C-alpha cells in the first residue's frame, strides 16, 4: 500500500509540536541586515569624507622638498588608511546588501557601485559640511597612534634634513629663538629671525606647529615659515597677554619677502649635503 507522505509529514509536525518561527524574528533578522548595511555605508561615507579632508589638506607646496616627482609625492601622501577603511566598509555593505531578501537579484557591479555611490555621496556631504575636517582633526589631536604611525603625511614632517620639522612649541628663548619638541621627542632651537607666517600665530605652550626651513647644526633649525599644525585652525594673538610671543603676517610676511620667498627644493638640499 502506497503511504500518504503528506499525512506523515503533517503528523510529524503535530507530534513534535513544531510551530512556525514568529514573524518578529524574521523582521528582526531583516532589519538587522538592513541596519548593518546602513552602518557599513555610513562608515564608508565617513572614510570617504576623511579621504577628501586629507587630500584637501595636503600641502602641495612642500612637494619640492621631498621629491621632484609629482606622482611619487601623491603616492606618499595618499590617505591609505582611510582608503582601506572605505574599501573594507564597501565590502561589508556589499556583503549585507547581497543578504537582503532581494539582494541576489542584482549584478555584482550594480551592488558594488550603488553601495560605493551612497558612501561617496554621504562622504561628500560630510566633507562639504566641514564635519569630516573636524573629525580628522579630532583624530589627529586625540589619537597619537593615528597621528604618528598611521597618517603618512605626518612622516613628511619628520624630515629636518629636508627642511621640514614639526612639533610642539615649548618656550621663547629670546627675540630670535624659540624651543620646540619635535615628533621624535627631540628638543630643537629654532631661529625665527627671518620667519614668515600667513596667519597670526600666538606661540603658546604645547601648540603644534609645522616649520619649513633649514637644519643647521645639531638640533638647530633656521625657520623660514611657521604654520599651525592644523591648517584650517585660526588663532588670534591675545592682546591681554603682552608677554606671549605672537607672530603676525603684516610684520613677518611683508610683500617684498612674499615675492622673494621660495621654498628650498630637494635638489638644493642634496647639493648642500654633498
Amino acid at each position, binding site marked *: 500500500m502506497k503511504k500518504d*507522505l*503528506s*499525512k*506523515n*509529514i*503533517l503528523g*510529524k*509536525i*503535530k507530534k513534535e509540536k*513544531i*510551530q*512556525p*518561527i*514568529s*514573524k518578529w*524574528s*524574521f523582521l528582526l*533578522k531583516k532589519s538587522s541586515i538592513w541596519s548593518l548595511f546602513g552602518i557599513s555605508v555610513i562608515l564608508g561615507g565617513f572614510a570617504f569624507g576623511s579621504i577628501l579632508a586629507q587630500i584637501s589638506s595636503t600641502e602641495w607646496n612642500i612637494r619640492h622638498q621631498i621629491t621632484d616627482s609629482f606622482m611619487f609625492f601623491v603616492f606618499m601622501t595618499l590617505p591609505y588608511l582611510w582608503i582601506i577603511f572605505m574599501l573594507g566598509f564597501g565590502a561589508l555593505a556589499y556583503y549585507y546588501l547581497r543578504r537582503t*531578501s*532581494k539582494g*541576489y*537579484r*542584482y*549584478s*555584482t557591479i550594480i551592488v558594488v557601485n550603488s553601495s560605493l555611490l551612497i558612501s561617496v555621496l554621504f562622504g561628500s556631504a560630510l566633507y562639504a559640511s566641514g564635519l569630516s575636517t573636524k573629525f580628522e582633526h579630532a583624530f589627529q589631536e586625540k589619537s597619537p597612534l593615528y597621528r604618528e604611525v598611521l597618517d603618512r603625511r605626518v612622516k613628511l614632517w619628520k624630515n629636518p634634513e629636508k627642511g621640514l620639522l614639526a612639533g610642539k612649541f615649548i618656550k621663547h628663548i629670546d627675540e630670535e629663538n624659540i624651543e620646540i619638541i619635535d615628533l621624535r621627542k627631540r628638543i630643537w632651537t629654532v631661529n625665527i629671525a627671518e620667519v614668515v607666517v600667513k596667519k597670526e600665530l600666538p606661540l603658546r605652550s604645547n601648540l603644534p606647529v609645522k616649520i619649513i626651513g633649514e637644519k643647521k647644526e645639531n638640533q638647530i633649525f633656521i625657520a623660514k615659515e611657521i604654520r599651525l599644525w592644523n591648517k584650517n585652525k585660526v588663532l588670534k594673538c591675545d592682546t591681554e597677554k603682552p608677554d606671549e610671543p605672537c607672530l603676525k603676517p603684516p610684520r613677518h610676511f611683508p610683500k617684498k619677502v612674499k615675492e622673494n620667498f621660495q621654498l628650498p627644493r630637494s635638489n638644493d638640499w642634496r647639493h648642500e649635503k654633498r
Partner: protein
Amino acid sequence: MVNPDFSQKTDEELVVLTLQDQDVFYYLIKRYEQKLLNYILRLSSTSRENAEDILQEVFIKIYKNLNGFDRDLKFSSWAYRITHNETMSHFRKKQTKLKITSIDDEENNNLINLLKSSLDIQKEFSTKEIAKKVREIIDLLTSKYREILVLRYLEEKDYQEISDILKIPMGTVATLVSRAKKRFKIEATKNHLDELI
C-alpha cells in the same frame, strides 16, 4: 480528503490559511510533494526512501519558515530554494557525488530537448537509450552546471524562477545556462552521442 475549496486556492492564500490553521498545510504538501520529490531525485542518485526523508525535512523547514515567506516571490520558487539547499546540504554532509536519477517518460523527453537545444538539432527523435546517455553526460558535468540544466530543462523553470531558487542574478543564470550547454555539447561530442542520433 481533498477539500475542493482549498484546491482552488493559490499557494500564497494557502500559506496565509496555514498560519491560521495547521491542517491547511496538508494541501500545500499535497500540491508540492511529487514535484519536490522529483526534484530531489533529479538532483541526486539517492534512493526513493532517502529522498522522502529529505522531503520530510524540506516540508518541516517550509512550515517553520512560513512567516518568513516573501510574498514578492512565487511560493514554488521559495519551496524549490529550500529543497535545493536541503538536498545540497544533505549530500555535502555525506560527501556523495550527485547524479541524476531517471524519473519518467516526460523526463526523457526533456532530456532529449536539452540535447536538441545544445546540439542545435531539428530532427525529431526520442529513444530511451539516448535519454539515458544524456543523463550520463549530465552526470559528468560539475554540480554548478548540472543544477542549472536540471532546473532549466527537467524542472522547466524560467530564468526568473531559477534566479530566485539559486539566489543568483538573472544575468548569471543566462551565462550559466549557456556555459552548461556548451560544456554539455563538448561532453556529448566526446562521448559520441551525436552518432546515436
